[in-house]
């Protein structure tokens, strides 16, 4: 999805920034750090804007240095976003944010979208974060994603093609594997283990 947007970005003056929330680094995924990570992606290519360079120099003057505050990040981010014709922000696995960070993150995103109405925000997460999103974006477009047979079949075929013991495989066994996994699909909410490498996140 991000790559699709990036391909289009090459032709237009738009830019894509992404974030992957991860419960394993929850403590570090503060709203401030997440906004900073988006900002990094916007300014990384075209040279660092002077306002950011100055803010960094100011922070260095304090003994030990100071980290940017959320309000600093938001100010710098809004300036950076305004320099592009359009910015796409993609955030994966919102449910892996700490609850307090999630609300603050959504509030910050709403703040950005009010300042730059062209900004588009793509979010993924478990169904329960929908309510939180709709508190800040009442008209958010929601698309439910569920595993479908077509995707699973494609994936199984790919994995079977890459089987590292081809001599242990024949067409009958191959057909059996595909048939039995697809046959069990209707009973599953979460995919069975052979698919776990595809559906880890």
């Amino acid at each position: 999805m991000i790559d699709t947007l990036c391909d289009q970005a090459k032709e237009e003056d738009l830019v894509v920034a992404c974030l992957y929330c991860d419960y394993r680094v929850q403590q570090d995924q503060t709203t401030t750090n997440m906004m900073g990570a988006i900002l990094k992606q916007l300014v990384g290519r075209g040279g660092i804007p002077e306002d950011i360079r100055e803010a960094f120099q100011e922070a260095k003057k304090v003994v030990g240095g100071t980290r940017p505050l959320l309000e600093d990040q938001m100010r710098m981010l809004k300036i950076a976003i305004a320099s592009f014709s359009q910015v796409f922000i993609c955030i994966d696995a919102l449910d892996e944010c700490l609850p307090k960070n999630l609300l603050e993150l959504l509030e910050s995103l709403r703040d950005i979208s009010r300042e730059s109405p062209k900004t588009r925000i793509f979010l993924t997460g478990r169904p329960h974060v929908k309510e939180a999103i709709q508190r800040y974006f009442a008209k958010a477009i929601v698309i439910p994603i569920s595993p479908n047979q077509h995707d699973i079949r494609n994936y199984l075929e790919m994995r079977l093609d890459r089987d590292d013991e081809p001599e242990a495989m024949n067409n009958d066994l191959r057909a059996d594997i595909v048939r039995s996994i697809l046959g069990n699909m209707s009973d599953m909410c979460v995919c069975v283990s052979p698919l776990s490498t595809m559906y880890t996140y």
Partner: protein
Amino acid sequence: MAQTINTNAVTYGDGNINCPNINNSYNTNIYQSDEDAQIMRWLSPLEPGNRHDSVRTGRFNGVRDWLLETRQWREWRGGEDGVDKVVLFCSGNPGVGKTYLR
């Protein structure tokens, strides 16, 4: 001073310890100077680009192309200014492949 400012800024793999170190077109930052690199670490210790490399190599063609064909995607992607179509939320339980949408 310049050395002390980022002592707490650890570069995380964002859960991607084994992610392949490949180059691609996605937000690859080439810093002009040491100061630029310091500023980047100061802005945030998070490095989402690393995780993206891992996702794109773990994905294979043919999955989830349908999203790009939906009316909702087109409305969001080509939306006029305004708050109505700002957010597109793909909702699903763990393991359904949200991360691997393309």
